[in-house]
């Protein structure tokens, strides 16, 4: 029997199986379709076969990175969560996925990667704490630049920057999108009957991070929590399909504590303290050398053997004679 396909994705937190929207979409779809994937949850994207997450390594050693490509591959392997959908329902599914990509995705990117307080306090911090040294120093910043570039392309605006106007516009679109999804879901358990489909996977992947993350600026979260059916929808999927992940994780407890106690819970605290001390020492030595406070002189051997006649400090006869 052939070995199962291997799925690499970001590790989970906040009671979610993964912190990444794309990874959540793929994980949810695989669960709904019953695909036997070997899931590898990692916190170093460079260990993924494609250099990014999610990534699926197939039996034939091909690598797929986009959620849509991974889902198409799973369908070809006869793991199809949309098997029971009519043509009309399939059309609706594609339409609502387009709606989310156009209206909700930009707001998600903004909330987690662009909004300054959320990015500094939650997103960058999470990735920096979970990535191995030294990647944690530069990868979160690079990821943010990529997300900003993605947002600019989605919005068709090259000079787009964080600001009140942009935030207002993005959150208005996202709020409208969530309301439309809520109206479409109604009082049903899933979007099309009693079994979940690819649309359910996409909706869950986009909404679960908003619902579960602890963000300082939680406007989007408030909007989602006001829609009871969508909140219950996400909670039900977590309970039914990801029961092991649906609990408070240690790092979540840490992040929900007051700011004063943050430093006591830093992972690898001792290593970071030593590293900081070495960097500080190096900086001080460099400064001392560059400013001439400390100088290193090369003294020749002969000079050491025959010391020159040193003039007494007090004698200034030559100078006085010149005057």
């Amino acid at each position, binding site marked *: 029997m052939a070995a199962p396909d291997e799925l690499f994705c970001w590790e989970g937190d906040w009671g979610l199986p993964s912190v990444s929207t794309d990874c959540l979409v793929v994980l949810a779809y695989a669960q709904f379709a019953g695909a036997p994937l070997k899931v590898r949850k990692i916190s170093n994207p460079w260990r993924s076969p494609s250099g990014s997450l999610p990534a699926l390594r197939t039996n034939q050693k091909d690598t797929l990175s*986009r959620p849509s490509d991974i889902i198409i591959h799973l369908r070809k392997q006869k793991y199809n969560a949309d098997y029971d959908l009519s*043509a009309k329902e399939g*059309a609706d599914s594609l*339409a609502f996925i387009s*709606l989310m990509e*156009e209206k909700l995705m930009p707001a998600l990117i903004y909330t987690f990667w662009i909004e300054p307080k959320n990015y500094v306090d939650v997103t960058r911090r999470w990735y920096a704490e979970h990535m191995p040294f030294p990647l944690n120093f530069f990868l979160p910043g690079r990821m943010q630049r990529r997300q900003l570039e993605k947002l600019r392309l989605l919005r068709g605006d090259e000079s787009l920057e964080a600001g009140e106007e942009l935030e207002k516009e993005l959150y208005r679109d996202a709020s409208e999108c969530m309301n*439309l999804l809520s109206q479409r879901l109604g009082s049903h358990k899933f979007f099309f009957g009693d079994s979940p489909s690819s649309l359910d996977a996409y909706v869950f992947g986009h909404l679960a991070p908003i619902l579960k993350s602890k963000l300082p600026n939680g406007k989007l979260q408030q909007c989602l929590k006001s829609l009871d059916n969508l909140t219950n929808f996400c909670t039900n999927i977590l309970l039914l399909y990801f029961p092991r992940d649906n609990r408070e994780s240690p790092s979540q407890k840490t992040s929900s504590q007051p700011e004063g106690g943050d430093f006591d819970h830093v992972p690898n605290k001792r290593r970071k303290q030593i590293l900081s001390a070495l960097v500080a020492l190096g900086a001080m030595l460099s400064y001392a050398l560059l400013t001439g406070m400390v100088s290193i002189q090369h003294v020749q051997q002969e000079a050491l053997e025959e010391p020159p006649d040193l003039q007494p400090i007090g004698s200034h006869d030559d100078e006085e004679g010149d005057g």
Partner: protein
Amino acid sequence: MSLAADAFVSQLAAAEPWPENATLYQPLKGELVRSSGTGLSVVAYLRMCGLPVEVVYRANAEYMSPSGKIPFIHVGNQVVSELGPIVQFTKAKGHSLSDGLDDVQRAEMKAYMELVNNMLLTAELYIQWCDDATAAEISRPRYSSPYSWPLSNILSYQKQWEVRRKMNAIGWGGKTLEQVGAAQTLFMLTQRLPVLMLLFTTELDALVFGHLFTILTTRLTSAELAERIKSYSNLLSFCRRIEQTYFDDKKKKSRIS
């Protein structure tokens, strides 16, 4: 502008009736490369609402628009660009095509509008700028026609580079038309047309018509997408019906062959 100021401006705009001298600005006539089907969608929508509008073609329409997006309408002292905001603007003035829909139908209509924007609009751009033959023979010369050399070359290559960059970002770079999902979208629309478009005309009809009619009537080196549309009889008859109802001066026969 604050939310309160926004609301105040909207109220003022809503209070004024639709003027007789409303103007829609588009790029040069017959130059469908820049605005794709969106311009036609806006014209169709305004005609469906029974709102008079004069269409003005300007080479620099793109640069006249405050948002840089086309087409845009100039109504009184208001300038609004793109179909979505124009629909909201007319709604504020009491002209709406989707009032008869319930919540679920309205949600589905808006989702399909995004599907058309996401797939068909992107497919149009893909055909025009990512197919080397079409870009060289039609798109670049047509796009650069209002400008003199060397600006014409600079702007047309800049546009092509922008579009290709976007295609790469969304994963369409290096794919064939078959792979990009435009054909799938057409199939989805054939499934949806009988359900949404029987009772009354909505802004979705205007949007779909604008894009389909543009693909059917624009000269391109590859007619693959147009042939796909023609293979679906209900899409073709839908386009003919809208054209005859809102665009025909009765003497001319349909431009859709």
